[in-house]
């Protein structure tokens, strides 16, 4: 005969139907005679049911879309590396009589695959950009920061993304996110939309760090069009002394 303490170790298994039939029968027999263990079993059942009744959160639709983008991106990258691997194995094959044929095949196949992977690369870029746009709306500052930093990986950016980045620069509540956005935009200085957007932003920023950083960016881009906005900024009351000095300097250097 087992003691109550030992029976109690089997209660959870009994409740989950994981006991061997013989052990279950023995426990049940004991339960018939022991009110204490019956009470313990009821409590065990209540604990286990409570946990099992916890509801799983509903996965947002975005989760699936993100997975899709990740999988496609992964497949595209994988294909590229398989293709590279093939070249080497072809080159290392010691079948000289076939060499000419192989070279020709390789050229055709290579051109074909290259064309395909370019197309796939482009699709992946588009998807990535779409994903970044959603990430920029994320309530978590760290996610928005990630999105901003990812823009550096993109080969091309379209007007929508630029507009979203400018909106982030002007409206994001987190100063670190704004600062990173400014850096990302500075790297896109070739786009005229970026330059005009940055100039407009000069007078709307209220954080000294950002104001200083914008002055630096304008110097780097040698953007003479910003002088007007900087003069406007100097008129603002309560402007940080450091910023005032820097802006004056910037104006002199730009003119």
């Amino acid at each position, binding site marked *: 005969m087992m003691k109550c303490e030992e029976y109690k170790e089997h209660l959870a*298994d009994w409740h989950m139907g994981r006991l061997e039939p013989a052990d279950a029968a023995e426990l049940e027999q004991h339960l018939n005679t022991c009110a204490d263990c019956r009470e313990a079993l009821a409590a065990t059942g209540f604990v*286990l049911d409570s946990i099992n009744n*916890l509801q799983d959160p509903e996965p947002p639709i975005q989760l699936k879309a993100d997975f899709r983008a990740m999988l496609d991106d992964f497949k595209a990258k994988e294909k590229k590396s398989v293709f590279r691997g093939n070249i080497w194995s072809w080159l290392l094959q010691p079948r000289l009589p076939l060499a000419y044929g192989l070279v020709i095949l390789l050229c055709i196949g290579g051109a074909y695959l290259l064309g395909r992977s370019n197309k796939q690369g482009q699709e992946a870029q588009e998807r990535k950009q779409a994903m970044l746009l959603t990430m920029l709306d994320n309530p978590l500052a760290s996610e928005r920061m990630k999105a901003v930093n990812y823009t550096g990986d993109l080969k091309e950016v379209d007007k929508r993304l630029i507009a979203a980045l400018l909106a982030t620069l002007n409206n994001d509540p987190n100063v670190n996110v704004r600062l990173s956005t400014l850096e990302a935009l500075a790297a896109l200085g070739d786009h005229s939309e970026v330059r005009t957007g940055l100039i407009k932003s000069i007078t709307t920023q209220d954080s000294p760090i950002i104001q200083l950083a914008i002055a630096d960016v304008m110097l780097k881009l040698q953007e003479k069009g910003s002088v007007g906005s900087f003069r406007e900024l100097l008129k603002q009351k309560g402007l940080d002394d450091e910023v005032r000095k820097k802006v004056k300097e910037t104006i002199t250097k730009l003119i």
Partner: protein
Amino acid sequence: MLQVKAGDLERMSLLFERHHRALLGFLFHLTQRREASEDMVQTVFYRMLKYRNSFTEGSNFSGWMYHIARNVLKDQKFGSGSKYDPISVHEEKITGGTLADERLEKKQSWQQLYDAMDMLSESDREILILNRVKELNYPEISEIMGISQGAARVRVSRAVEELKKIFVKKGIKRDS
């Protein structure tokens, strides 16, 4: 998963369909952070793609997935105080009862349960949350946690006992 390993990467989308909901639940109940959990689901699937060669024939996919999920959890550092209010996850579901009282009651009992679970040790909480995943039995749980089946059995039972004590302490009763 074996087909994924053999190069049919598209098959992973089927596995995602089948398992992402349970995985999200597992991560969420352990962290109570919804967005971080969603991110981690993505990370787990990425790692499964990347390390697909480490999946061995004959092993249980769910077991492998939760094993990776545990590692992802370990890598994740959470700042304090940013915990997501778990109750609002259920908000949309609590529309059944027409009486405001009824809704309030449900809300409170969920909150109580989460508070009680918070008082458990991390490993007790983990084994109970693993234990509730339908696809996992002792063989899988023992593999995921790197312990023997007997130890897994004992730890589930002890974790239940711990939670029972906490329920008593907090006055959580049946039929209340």
